[in-house]
């Protein structure tokens, strides 16, 4: 519900009360980290303070989304915060447990590696065909991830990539640093690359019984865990990881102002795109309002709008529902939409219905991670150590 819409229904004060009321369902989910601390029963004040701050931050940001009608502005800030929090949360934990973030094959195969949801596409085929889980890190955790991933994907589709992904904020951050892009045109055919990466790594993984993407390509190994260099192959991989990180997550997003890793490479994103086909939400253009200014093209960070969208009135299947085009459209022609309903009818209700599950997903992933990272930073300041 946007402020404009709220204001139409009454006074600004009424609108704020209404936004407050609509924020209430989010409050318990935003308190996930705090609840975790309180349930542990051993949390000290220094641990509770970050959780309390995150609870307030998440609640205030959702409230601001409702009052201002802006989605992307607040989502993006939280999304980037989560991405930066992940290494601060994960790497010290690994050092606490194993004294390193370089995992040996033995540690991986004795289920000491964390299960990464990005492996989902590679894991499924060998598991179905041979009954072998090729990423044997914490199987129980993996099953939990599987059900969470399926559920969230069915509800918000590729919205996962802008609301649930713990790494996507990195290239979003670098894509937002420059005011104008240096590279303005990216050929259409590159949009198919994530599907090719998905196809290649799923099938190569099924042939070799190794998670090929994790072993050779994942740029985010730089900010998480990676295999120790015990052979020529793992040493070569250690050279590739920083190169893919610098190229896909830093340099190209800086030059294009686009989320290159998410939009043009990530195989998990390609997999998520298929969920956009079966999920009820979509981004639509009201062609009666649209002035064909193409600002949405330029703003879309994942190349999910093109000339065809102006004819069909739809975003492409790769849309991550980040809301950037909705925020940017000067005519208010872009909106969240529920499939099967008429265009332009209750866009605010559709947005609100999308925001609830998407924001709950973010709170589920983000609250604990950001609070823990904040606590570790405070710990570093007060004790000189993050561990």
């Amino acid at each position, binding site marked *: 519900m946007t402020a404009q819409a709220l204001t139409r229904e009454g006074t600004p004060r009424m609108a704020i009360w209404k936004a407050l009321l609509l924020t209430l369902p989010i409050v318990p989910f935003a308190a996930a980290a705090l609840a975790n601390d309180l349930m542990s029963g051993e949390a000290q004040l220094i641990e509770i303070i970050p959780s309390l701050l995150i609870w307030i931050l998440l609640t205030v940001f959702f409230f601001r989304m409702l009052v201002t009608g802006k989605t992307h502005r607040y989502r993006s800030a939280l999304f980037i915060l989560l991405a930066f929090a992940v290494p601060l949360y994960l790497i010290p934990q690994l050092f606490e447990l194993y004294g390193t973030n370089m995992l040996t094959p033995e540690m991986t195969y004795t289920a000491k590696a964390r299960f990464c949801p990005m492996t989902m596409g590679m894991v499924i085929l060998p598991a179905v*065909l041979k009954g072998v889980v090729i990423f044997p890190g914490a199987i129980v955790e993996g099953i939990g991830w599987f059900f969470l991933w399926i559920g969230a994907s069915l509800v918000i589709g590729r919205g996962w990539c802008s609301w649930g992904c713990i790494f996507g904020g990195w290239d979003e951050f670098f894509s937002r640093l420059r005011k104008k892009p240096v590279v303005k045109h990216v050929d259409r055919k590159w949009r198919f690359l994530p599907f*090719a990466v998905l*196809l*290649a790594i799923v*099938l*190569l993984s*099924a*042939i070799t019984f190794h998670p090929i993407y994790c072993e050779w390509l994942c740029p985010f190994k730089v900010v998480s865990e990676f295999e120790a260099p015990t052979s*020529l192959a793992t040493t070569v991989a250690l050279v590739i990881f920083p190169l893919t990180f610098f190229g896909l997550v830093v340099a190209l997003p800086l030059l294009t102002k686009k989320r290159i890793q998410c939009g043009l490479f990530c195989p998990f994103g390609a997999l998520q795109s298929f969920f956009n086909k079966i999920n009820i939400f979509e981004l639509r253009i009201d062609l009666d309002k649209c002035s064909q200014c193409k600002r949405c093209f330029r703003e879309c960070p994942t190349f999910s709008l093109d000339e065809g969208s102006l004819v069909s009135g739809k975003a492409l299947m790769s849309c991550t529902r980040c809301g950037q085009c909705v925020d940017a459209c000067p005519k208010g022609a872009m909106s969240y939409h529920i499939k099967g309903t008429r265009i332009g009818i209750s866009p605010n209700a559709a947005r609100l219905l999308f925001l609830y599950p998407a924001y709950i997903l973010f709170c589920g992933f983000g609250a604990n991670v950001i609070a823990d990272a904040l606590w570790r930073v405070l710990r570093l300041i007060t004790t000189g150590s993050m561990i």
Partner: protein
Amino acid sequence: MHGFLLGLANGTTCLAFCAPVLVPFLLAEGENVRQNLLTLLKFLGGRLGGYMLFGLLAWATGSLLSRAANYEGLVIGAAYVGLSVLLLVAVLRRKAPAPDACALKSAQDKLGRWPALLPVGMGLLAGLKTCPPVLLAFTDAASIGTLSGSLLLFLTFFLGTSLYFLPMSLLGAFARLPDLRIVGKFAALIVALYYLVSGILLFAGGVQL
């Protein structure tokens, strides 16, 4: 299973290589889905024949290679590098190759008197074409060492690649073919780079595939 998965991995490349022959033929025929499926099955039958011949050849080559067992890493590594280079060249060429166009034309003329056999002949020639995915399967089959294993690998490779051909009997699939070819080309490029790196590492003794 390995041959089947190898076929699945390279199916889009096979499709991209064979589509210039098959699609115009099916479109020119202008039949319904059922007739197109029948034509496709004939084409695939011919292709299977071509693959079986390759299986036989791979077994013969493998027998020779087994004498150089001490150099297996070097030989297979070099084969992977060679294959990946071929695949890269094929993918990076500006135009998609028109496989065996002259041979097909000639076969079409000869088989023209027996229209029902025409798709079978086309399939056989397409199967005999040494496109990179076939050479990849050839290398794997040669390393098995037994005739039955070699033939079985090519049979399962055929089944894996053939899955991509089945939707072609549906006319709706043709509309998406250019996009599918782009995906196939990129995927082939990634597979080629993977085999190039693996081949170099195998050659250097750094990894055991």
